[in-house]
């Protein structure tokens, strides 16, 4: 991928132009850490490396993290996934797909005003484990689920 994502500063400048300037005061609360787009993590090609670049080495499986998704996706282009954390002080929720060329799909930094319950839709190139990685109390926890991607239609 050859592009330069906007720096946080530029985002804020743009956002300011859009009338978000008034919120700067809120943005600098310590809870919502404003990281720049983590290019290295999004472009890394192995799970351990991605964890390392996210500062999530040593993440452990936790029953308090849930990944909700159907066992089979009818199409890999759109796979609905929901992550729920029951851990106190959850500040980040990420979705990773083990067998995608780049594992990290999406990362959500959530403030104290959020219920740690996020749903999105991701692309999967093939049947794979999908990992929800949660940061809570400064530590990382995971939940993993295999989602089968099927071939549909007549054209395949």
């Amino acid at each position, binding site marked *: 991928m050859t592009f330069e994502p906007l720096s946080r500063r530029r985002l804020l400048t743009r956002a300011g132009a859009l009338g978000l300037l008034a919120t700067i005061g809120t943005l600098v609360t310590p809870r919502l850490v404003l990281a720049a787009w983590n290019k290295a993590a999004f472009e890394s090609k192995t799970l351990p490396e991605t964890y390392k670049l996210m500062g999530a080495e040593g993440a452990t499986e936790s029953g308090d993290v849930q990944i909700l998704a159907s066992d*089979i996706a009818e199409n890999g282009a759109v796979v609905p996934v929901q992550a729920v954390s029951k851990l106190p002080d959850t500040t980040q929720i990420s979705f990773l797909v083990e067998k995608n060329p780049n594992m990290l799909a999406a990362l959500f930094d959530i403030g104290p005003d959020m219920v740690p319950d996020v749903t999105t839709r991701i692309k999967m190139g093939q049947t794979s484990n999908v990992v929800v990685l949660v940061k809570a109390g400064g530590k990382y926890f995971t939940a993993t689920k295999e989602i089968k991607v*099927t*071939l549909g*239609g*007549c*054209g*395949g």
Partner: protein
Amino acid sequence: MSTTVKSLSAVALLLVLGTASAGAGEGPWGPGADDASFKAMLKSGFRSKGIATLARLDQDETQAFCSDPDNVSGKTGEKKRAEIEAANLATVKWPSDGVWLGDYKEGEKVAQSGRGLTSTDKADMVNGGNCYNCHQLSPKEISYGTIGPSLYQYGKLRGDTDEVKRTTWAKIWNSKASNACSNMPRAGHMGIVTEKQIKDLMALLLDPASPVNQ
């Protein structure tokens, strides 16, 4: 491929439209769907695109017969049906070197692929057999269709006698040889797959080592 289809399309549409309603008076169509109106609609409604030329709308005798649901259901056309089956059986080309079975692993690939011969495909691409679209074969593939019967354990249930091989080969080469209006394409006869691909499909169905027979 193109030669087969061309020779088939040589059978004029006119003949087709005559045959379609043969034995059924006006056919099962209501007012307004007479042959002339239908033909005009086809002519104005389609255009050639890529390898899918307008000639593909010209039917052979089998297609014309099977475009009448009364013929398909057996309500009409009993005698014609037998003639069509005999004519299709006569088209079957048996393996040129006497070898029936190829490589089941290659056969699995042919069975998986539904590609080829559409208006967006190139003429020189390798066509698929479309098998999984309609049949269950290897139990490892959960995404299979049900328009055709399950072929899981096909060989295991039947053995590999010459009779089974002949029947299976004929079914793949020209499905209409045994069932005039089968939903299954005439894979060999219409040039959809090659003789080698059919051998590989034969192995997928009949080789004891094939995943189909586990």
